[in-house]
């Protein structure tokens, strides 16, 4: 019995390892057709669901490399007479002189091209925006709670902040769609769904997370250190800057990176407000798309190659966030036991 239980519990512990590796393996297996088809070029290809003539794919790709920056309409400009059967949701096609677009339907030698650049860029930009917005405010809250506010304020406010971190992310998304999006578009212009709104909603969502972790690590500073600094005549700001921050630095940076990892993979808060449009955001108020949102919107109705492509994106997201979170965990937030 004893031996059985020991083995059983060891096996349970191994499920963590098992699940993580099988997530990686399964995603890889399902993504394999897409990886074979598009290779690593997938990461820098901005075309999504674009049908091109098979014989001209090489040329199209070559042309793409010259024009990557300004491809907005999922059209591949080429010098050759390239037949592009346009995607049915495209309406306004800029007709350049050197671009021939024909509604020709020789399906037999055409091929659908998928590239992940737009969602990858959208994910990274919205996360950066979120962190730029959230970190200063969260630091302010943490400093306020641990150093400025009297206990009768800091206690309830601290609890409120922790509770807010528990609110499901779909609530943030819904609020963003109906209230915050229109508010932002009034101030900054643009639509009520955009990269900016997505970044800000994401930022507001991670504020409680960063604030409470930062406050916790600031509180670990021994009082003796603070008191001796005050005794030397240091102001509160100087104590915070020169005593508390250096002491809690690892914890603070770790919590920021952890929040960044969460923001990268966040789906519901972003899905409502980013727009879900496959185009580069030229302005910050343009709509775009991020990897989790692509998955959420397209997964249920995909099959074959388009499904495999989604698994490829999921794999990319998993690897990126795994690396980011592990970095935070192993480098900054190591358990001291």
């Amino acid at each position, binding site marked *: 019995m004893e031996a059985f239980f020991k083995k059983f519990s060891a096996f349970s512990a191994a499920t963590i390892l098992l*699940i993580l590796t099988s997530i990686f393996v399964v995603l890889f297996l399902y993504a394999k057709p897409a990886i074979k088809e598009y290779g690593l070029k997938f990461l820098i290809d901005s075309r999504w669901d674009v049908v091109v003539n098979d014989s001209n794919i090489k040329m199209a790709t070559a042309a793409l490399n010259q024009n990557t920056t300004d491809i907005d309409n999922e059209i591949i400009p080429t010098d050759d007479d390239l037949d592009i059967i346009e995607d049915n949701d495209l309406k306004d096609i800029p007709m350049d002189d050197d671009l021939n677009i024909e509604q020709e339907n020789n399906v037999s030698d055409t091929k659908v091209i998928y590239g992940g650049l737009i969602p990858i860029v959208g994910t990274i930009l919205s996360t950066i925006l979120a962190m730029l917005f959230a970190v200063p*405010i969260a630091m302010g809250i943490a400093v306020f709670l641990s150093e400025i506010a009297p206990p009768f304020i800091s206690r309830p406010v601290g609890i409120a902040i922790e509770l807010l971190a528990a609110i499901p992310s779909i609530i943030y998304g819904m*609020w963003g769609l109906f209230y915050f999006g229109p508010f932002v578009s009034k101030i900054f212009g643009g639509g009520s769904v955009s990269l900016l709104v997505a970044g800000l909603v994401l930022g507001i969502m991670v504020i409680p997370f960063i604030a409470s972790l930062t406050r916790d690590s600031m509180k670990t500073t021994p009082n003796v250190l603070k008191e001796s600094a005050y005794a030397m005549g240091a102001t509160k700001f100087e104590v915070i800057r020169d005593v508390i921050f250096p002491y809690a630095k690892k914890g603070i940076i770790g919590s920021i990176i952890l929040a960044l990892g969460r923001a990268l993979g966040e789906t519901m808060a972003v899905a409502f407000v980013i727009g879900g449009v496959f185009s580069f955001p030229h302005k910050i108020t343009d709509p775009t798309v991020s990897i989790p949102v692509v998955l959420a919107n397209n997964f249920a109705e995909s099959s074959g190659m388009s499904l495999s492509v989604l698994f490829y994106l999921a794999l990319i997201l998993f690897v990126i966030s795994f690396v980011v979170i592990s970095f935070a965990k192993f480098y900054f937030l190591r358990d001291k036991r």
Partner: protein
Amino acid sequence: MRFLINKVVLFLSTVAAILGLLFLFWILITLTIKGVCAINLHIFTNDLVNNGLRNLLVGQFVLAFIAVLIGVPIGMIAGVYLQEYSFGSKYAEVIRNLSDVMMSAPSIVIGTFVYAVIVNPVGHMNGWAGAVALAIMMIPIVLRTTDDMLFLVPKELREAGVAIGAPKYKVIFDIILKAAKVGIMTGFLLAFARIVGETAPLLFTSGNSEYFTLDLNNEFPSLTVAIYNLATMPDKNLVDIAWAGAFILTLFVLVINLFGRYIIKEKK
């Protein structure tokens, strides 16, 4: 000058705190107003097909509950292993850190994983897949909670148990787990609160249904997925239902959290 800088910085950080809190309370207030206005008895007695929430509330609860049944035993026993059997080995350290990483892994990726291993072989979305996805999210949380709570159990209790000749598993079940019971239960409660509000792992695993069902072999209704679908509908009535659902969900999660905190405080 130094004092001026000090004043300015403290003022700025207070302003940042107020600004952040303002946003967060803005969310809560709109949610409460919208939710309270939309809640009525009709919502609780009808299914989504008749503009009600009954099947969704039940569905969400069933999914989360099955996730608890799957996730808690695995997570708990794994936590017991880390604290009682591993003796601080490298392997335990790796598991501990990996489960922290897994806790923050994108929930939608877990959804894609479950889609690949369950939905795709079965051929259609089903309730079991949704419950498994939630359970996978729950295991690392439960594991870490158990691990942390067992760490707090005094060493003397273990020694006393072993000294009277009890086998180790008996010591664990009858002494250590009992000593850490309140903390562990609270941890499970908080873990439950965290997965009950999840949407992303359910989107393409359990799908959605407008009708009342307890059949986990078919598409299964859930509140969060329904909120996601309803909120973007043009019909204002449906959006109101989504607000009511969002309010109920948030209230539920917050109450569980407050309750958990209260228990922990009582214990101390």
